[in-house]
């Protein structure tokens, strides 16, 4: 029995190695360049919005400007998702469109659109976090850990 499973295992290993060599790979420099410029442009637009806000309304505090900028970016991303061309940008952008706050907005909006047909409770509400759930959970867990490290180790000095 074990001999047979070993033969199967070695066959599978050989096959997987073979598949790896023939499967087309994503070109790394190209992917990096695309995510660099799409992510960069997103952040530049964000910076532009915050500069305009700070210039036109000097009474706003720095935090307030940042908040309003994020809100505008999120709204625009959700609008783009609803109109159906965010995924076209994201197919090129990769991490460049996924990492900024717009990616999070897109993930939530797309899930809510997709599961709208199952109703408001069991569809939209229940499935809203299917894609972004891991992001939220990991964000909370790791920021808690970082906070504790900051409190115990860095706080001692």
């Amino acid at each position, binding site marked *: 029995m074990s001999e*047979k499973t070993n*033969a199967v*295992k070695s*066959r*599978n*290993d050989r*096959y*997987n190695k*073979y*598949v790896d060599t*023939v*499967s*087309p*790979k*994503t070109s790394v420099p190209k992917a990096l360049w695309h995510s660099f410029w799409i992510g960069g442009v997103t952040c530049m637009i964000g910076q532009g919005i915050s500069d305009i806000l700070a210039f036109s309304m000097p009474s706003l505090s720095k935090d307030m400007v940042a908040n309003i900028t994020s809100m505008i970016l999120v709204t625009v991303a959700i609008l783009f*998702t*609803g109109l*159906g061309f*965010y*995924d076209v*940008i*994201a*197919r090129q*952008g*990769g991490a460049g*469109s*996924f990492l900024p706050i717009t*990616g999070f907005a*897109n*993930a939530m*909006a*797309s*899930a809510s*659109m*997709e*599961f709208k*047909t199952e109703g408001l409770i069991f569809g939209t509400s229940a499935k809203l976090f*299917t*894609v972004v759930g891991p992001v939220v959970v990991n964000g909370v867990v790791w920021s808690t850990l970082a906070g504790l490290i900051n409190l115990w180790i860095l706080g001692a000095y």
Partner: protein
Amino acid sequence: MESEIKHTIPKSRTEENAGIFPSPTYFSPRQRVMRFFNTPRIVGRMSVVGEKESKGPLGKYFHKCETDDKLGEKTFERAEIRMFDTAVRGAIRDAKLGIEDIDLMVSGDLLNQMTTSSYAARDIGVPHIGVYGACSTMTESLLVAATMVDGGYYKNVLCATCSHFATAERQFRFPLEYGCQRPPYAQWTVTGAAASVVSANTEAVKRFPKIVMAIPGIITDFGTNDLNNMGAAMAPAAMNTMFTLVTETGYSEDDFDLIITGDLGKLGSDILRDLMRKSGIKLGQNYIDCGNMIYDVYQKCYQGGSGCACSATIFNSFIMDKLCSGEYKRVAYLATGALMSTQSCYQGETIPCISHAVIVESPYGGEE
């Protein structure tokens, strides 16, 4: 009828190649090939596709093209049911029969619990057998239908299948509008539905293509677990059945005018060619892959199409046209299916795959 089928099995290549690619499943002594001596005929057919498929290289062969993804329905699932219904009714009309003449319907699709085919069967109202073979559903249903008709249990049996890009994407991957990058070896689920009517062989239908043999597949798992790389996962299953096809049926690979696989895509069909070469069989120009054919390069569908409808629509339009006109004499149709669920893949299980084969012959020419 019996004289039409060659029974002289050429010296089996199985023993010659025993050492090259060892796997316990190839060398079993069991008889895998089903021979239909009463030759059931495929008398009616219909294929419905979405807009993207109709713009592909085979677009002009399909019978109907739906320009709206939702077909005016509220959900994509309803649209899929409607498309399925259109294909079924069209095939029955093409066979010049009425719904009351259909004795049995064998159908399946990709969704959980096969909702599409069951819901569509609810409106059609004929006895229904649901089969699930993932993307190989069409060959599986043809196999079951041919068996029923050949055995004399039923006279007219309907086979149907369908898949929809939006519903498959939601079930197996991410929401439609979610911006994620696909790897370059991913495939695109075909939107479409296809149906064909298998009838008992009588004088009236002798001008239609006949099903002469079928090979039920063996579940093959070569240990791939990448949900996106279906072609590589399914190629070994196709190899297994194709090996049986050329060693046990009595035909060699050159006796077929066309050997078509279901939805291996470009990468998968290249891998299959490689695997077959290692087993000592060279696939020539007569081997094609439906997934590779259905989309054009500029449509950006990565390795090509996948899904039940991919091979089913092409078989029921292009291939059957050529068989009816006698341009192709003998065609082997091997659809492949990956029998995984998203849960099983996330749990680290590998992907078991299957490939059923059906051999269809043209009524014209041949061995007479």
